């Protein structure tokens, strides 16, 4: 059994909300990530799904150390990032890279592709400035772009090509883990397929660990080995990808799976949809007990009494629901 490459222990990221103009008052706390414990194995693709506002992006940014964790620890190969000094964090930054959702916003419009890709190489002193050109050319080839594009600016590329450049930038420092935050949501289906293929090829070839965040369950199922489902700052279900989607245990995952429209009209016409009433609650004022209970079709009194922990729910599976045995 290999040891996990990344360990999250009870990670919480809270944002204080203040009211008033001159005399700021503490008005509440948004618990964007509220107690996530998760082990990521080397070489695996972990899919993170949930609706907007569930904290999946905040969790990604906390892992990346772009946001300070309020409490809990993020441990990368034995090194605790949450208590590390700035210099220590800079040293591990190269092992941990990120690809963002919108390739139109995540590339600097005033930097050429060469400048964008050479910057991390030079900042981290990976190569001499004289070798940078060769390295950048190689990177572009890795992501399926011709090296002759090096002197172009981002506006000269399409969305799919820009996302390839963003992936090349993430790969520049040969990281161990890539966190991809909705990397295909802004792309058309035909382009989405290209980027998904590229990501899974790269993972296999370079033995990368990928944390893949998306709200589209079918995309996540396709690319991931394991899936973690988040709701209001907590992981509510965790398990092997196909298993979680085909046999969801947690009522929220069930509703989520049943809400995906199927591109097969025969299936679509026959199936029973679980309709969730209302919207996800505000993380500023979450419901007591299980955060999902106001929308849950199986909710009972016991659900509002205490927060259910993640417990074993079958082989390699975990779910956070007190009524797991009954439903």
């Amino acid at each position, binding site marked *: 059994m290999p040891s996990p490459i990344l360990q999250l222990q009870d990670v919480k990221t809270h944002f204080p909300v203040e009211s008033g103009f001159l005399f700021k008052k503490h008005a509440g706390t948004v618990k964007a990530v509220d107690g996530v414990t998760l082990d990521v194995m080397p070489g695996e693709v972990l899919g993170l799904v949930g*609706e*907007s506002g569930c904290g999946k992006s905040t969790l990604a940014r906390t892992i990346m150390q772009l946001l300070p964790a309020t409490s809990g620890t993020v441990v990368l190969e034995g090194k605790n990032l949450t208590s590390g000094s700035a210099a220590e964090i800079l040293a591990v930054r190269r092992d941990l890279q990120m690809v963002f959702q919108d390739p139109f916003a995540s590339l600097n419009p005033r930097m050429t592709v060469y400048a964008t890709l050479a910057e991390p190489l030079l900042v981290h002193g990976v190569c001499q400035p004289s070798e940078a050109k060769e390295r950048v050319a190689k990177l572009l080839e890795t992501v399926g772009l011709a090296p002759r594009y090096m002197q172009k600016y981002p506006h000269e590329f*399409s969305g*799919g090509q820009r996302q390839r450049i963003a992936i090349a930038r993430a790969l520049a420092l040969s990281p161990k883990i890539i966190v991809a935050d909705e990397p295909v949501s802004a792309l*058309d*289906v*035909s382009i*989405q*397929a*290209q980027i*998904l*293929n590229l990501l*899974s090829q790269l993972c296999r070839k370079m033995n990368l660990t990928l944390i893949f965040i998306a*709200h*589209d*369950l*079918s*995309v996540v*199922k*396709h*690319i991931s080995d394991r899936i973690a489902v988040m709701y209001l700052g907590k992981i509510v279900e965790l398990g092997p*990808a*196909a298993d979680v989607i085909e046999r969801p245990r947690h009522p929220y995952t069930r*509703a*989520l799976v*049943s*809400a*995906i*429209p*199927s*591109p*097969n*009209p*025969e299936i*679509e*016409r026959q199936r029973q*949809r679980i*309709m*969730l009433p*209302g*919207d*996800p609650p505000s993380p500023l004022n979450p419901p007591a007990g299980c955060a999902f209970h106001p929308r849950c079709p199986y909710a009972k009194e016991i659900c509002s009494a205490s927060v259910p922990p993640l417990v074993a729910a079958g082989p390699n599976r975990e779910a956070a629901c007190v009524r797991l045995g009954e439903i």
Partner: protein
Amino acid sequence: MPLLEVTDLRTWFHTRNGVYRAVDGVSFSVEKGETLGIVGESGSGKSVTCYSLLGLVPQPPGRIESGTAMFDGVDLLHCTPAQARGIRGKRIAMIFQDPMTSLNPYLRISEQLIEPLIIHEKISKKDALAKGLAMLEAVGINDAPKRLHQYPHESSGGMRQRVMIAMALITRPELLIADEPTTALDVTVQAQILELIKKLQQQFGMAVIFITHDLGVVSGLCDRVQVMYAGRIVETGDTRTLFAAPRHPYTRALQRSIPSMQPKGVELYTIPGMPPDLSKPTGGCAFVARCEAATDVCRATDPRLASLTPTHATACLRVQNNEL
């Protein structure tokens, strides 16, 4: 007689960089009470087609070069502004993609909601408000009396899209055009909105044109589907036939590139290359550069939509010649 019959619609954009043929010879019809899905990737002309019908294309740079759109004896593309005003917002209504930006943030929901009634039906404000309240309840908004007098920012995305739907349906239109109404919403909320559109359609007996890029959404909602590519309709048919046996190489490629249609872990099919530049028509089929089955004939001849069966038509020369 169909409710709406569009013939040979061409909407071109005249820009400094050339003439972009965003919609280039599109013909289709919508029957009373049916749901037509228009599917395509960004830039395929699906939104511009519908914007043209309602006179929402900015002119210039846009120009409607040819075509007619007959709606109950009136040509929407050539009628007087007064005639258009009598139809738009009353008999044909539209909902837009982004509920966050398509409501006016300065006006209370009540004012925006009853505006079409005040304009089109000459009823008193009090009666209009009563109708507005009933409509908000019909689209499933809880505590509607309170919501009615709130501002848009006080509601969530799903709630705002419900308000948009209520606003569009308040005049009981015969045709609703929905331009990607669920793209900006979460899946569980999307499921609610789709269910709502289905329910209201049955209740009011209206026809719906549903524009989307998501094949999954179309499959559950639409009676007929048409697939657009580079400003043209490349395939059209009833939903079951088109999904079970797509014939045009583009439709087939599109279907093969969706993860949920493929076994897990399998390499997804990718369409090579990129959509063509709409300002440089090639004379042949627009898909030719990305098509696996392209021949010299495809490069030279402009394909027309031709029927394979009474309910299924495709604009692929090789399919029409029984070669594919």
